[in-house]
């Protein structure tokens, strides 16, 4: 450990200052594969449903529960077919849109609201801050899934409500991080300087503080995306998330549960997609954390030099 540290410190000055993000990404193979996977997923989620709407909904009773890994019925049936003979591949791709869309909207909502509340709480550190943080404590002290269950019980399980409840349960993460960062930043010299020059509260927050907090929050958002996706899948699996005929991966796992004995692939593949996506997000978030942190960035740059 110590020897590696000293060695790398010694090498550090030789490394070019501006190693591109792309090169760093290429060097970390796990992060690169994750990135590629996510790009393909997003592409499929955007264009897939438009291209595959028809095979995803077309019933084909001759192919009911057709087993996977056979090309006899064309590539669309390579992962088998469901209980109504619909192509698994087409359904997985169509479902990816809902899955990613719900997670992305929930993450965006909680990032914006939680980030804003946290920054304000850190900036006006006083009674307002205490109230906000108590509120975060209440949310945190209770299992998110159960909050979601209750809210979706009282209101309808519509997509909008699902997004809302998922984002509310994840607010505290952003609130706490943003507040902690701002508490530290507002003590720095350049804030005092800006204040002396007569900057208003809103200018200080938007031009001086927010730009420093946003990168941290974005890194957390990547990680949160995986978490929210898993939460949405759990809710849809329990039958209180997305309702049929809409589909998400979580709902597909639930629907396949009735055929565990005869057709394992109905539940297996959608779950696998959830896991791969969550894993890719986790790996990429770990990489971003290092790549965007000037203190740790050399770890990725070093590998580059040794490789060349």
């Amino acid at each position: 450990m110590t020897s590696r540290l000293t060695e790398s410190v010694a090498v550090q000055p030789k490394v070019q200052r501006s190693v591109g993000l792309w090169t760093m990404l290429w060097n970390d193979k796990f992060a690169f594969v994750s990135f590629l996977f996510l790009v393909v997923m997003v592409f499929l989620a955007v264009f897939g449903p438009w291209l595959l709407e028809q095979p995803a909904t077309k019933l084909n009773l001759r192919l009911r529960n057709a087993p996977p890994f056979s090309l006899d019925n064309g590539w669309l049936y390579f992962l088998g077919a469901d209980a109504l003979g619909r192509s698994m591949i087409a359904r997985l791709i169509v479902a990816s849109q809902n899955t990613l869309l719900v997670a992305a909207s929930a993450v965006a909502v909680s990032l914006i609201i939680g980030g804003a509340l946290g920054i304000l709480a850190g900036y006006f550190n006083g009674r307002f801050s205490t109230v906000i943080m108590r509120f975060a404590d209440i949310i945190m002290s209770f299992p998110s899934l159960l909050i979601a269950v209750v809210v979706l019980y009282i209101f309808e399980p519509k997509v909008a409500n699902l997004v809302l409840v998922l984002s509310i349960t994840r607010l505290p993460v952003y609130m706490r991080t943003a507040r902690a960062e701002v508490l530290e930043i507002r003590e720095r010299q350049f804030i005092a300087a800006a204040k002396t020059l007569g900057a208003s509260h809103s200018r200080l927050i938007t031009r001086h503080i927010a730009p420093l907090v946003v990168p941290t929050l974005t890194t957390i958002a990547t990680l949160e995306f995986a978490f929210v996706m898993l939460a949405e899948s759990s809710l849809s699996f329990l039958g209180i998330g997305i309702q049929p005929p809409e589909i998400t991966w979580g709902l597909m796992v639930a629907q396949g549960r009735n055929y565990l004995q005869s057709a394992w692939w109905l539940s297996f593949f959608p779950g696998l997609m959830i896991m791969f996506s969550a894993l890719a997000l986790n790996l990429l978030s770990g990489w971003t954390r290092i790549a965007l942190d000037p203190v740790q960035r050399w770890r990725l740059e070093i590998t580059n030099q040794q490789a060349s």
Partner: protein
Amino acid sequence: MRQFLARRIFHSLISLVGLLVLVFFLARLTGNPGDLYLPLDSSIETRQAFTEKHGYDDPAYIQFGRYVRDLLSGDMGESVRKKRPALEIVLEAIPVTLMLAASAMFLALVGAVIVGARAAYRPGGVFDRVASISSLVSASAPDFWIAITAIIVFSVHLQWLPTSGLGGPIYWIMPVCVLLIRPFGLLVQVVRSSMLTVLSAAYIKTARAKGVKEKSIVFVHALRNAMIPVITVAGDQAAAMANGAVIVETIFGWPGIGKLMIDSIVQRDFAVVQAAILVTAFVILSINIVVDLTYAVLDPRIRKRS
């Protein structure tokens, strides 16, 4: 110390009251509580009688006062489904969930400490790399999918384990393993990074220079100090365990609080849902207080600060 404890209990009470208000007003927001408490197919007369009996036509603040008074006397309403006090039903279900969560958490902690410490001992080594990747995989796995896949493999194909139900030790294997997978993955990462920091501390070098055995350095000298962040994360996992328990109990048919809640929701038994929320919140807040006390035991500085 006593002051510290008092403050923590006070904060928890605030959270509990906040939750109480939230649940009460969310339930009233939707209009007629009869829609929430009674089954969907109950007649208009039943609803009318229900509304009058419970005074749901009174102003909200009077209702809230009555609600709090009933709560304090231990009355959380009656289950429409089972015709018994809701609290009684919930208290029957709690021990099952606690046993399940406690055994999963215990195994996850022990396993994570062993694996994480071993990985941190030689960072970048083969064991470390395997542990890092597999802990990431297990932290990313959807638990309901793991449960279903485990049923396909171990119950349907190999026929080693029962698919569901509650009975001898053999019934515990799959639920506990499924429940511990995600906390385990997370804890391994925390133990590893925490141990990495501690193992490079000066006092570890001193211990080595004195000729203390490596095993005792890692598991006695380093581990004690590395445990603080681990306990924090493990404590935060208490709420996550309740999430997992909902899934695991539903899939494996365990009569715990999670299954009770989902069943009550499906059958629209709101009194039970409400009682379950409050009792679960109470348990989780108590666990958080215990976690805070553990800090004080582990780290004398925290004891002094309060």
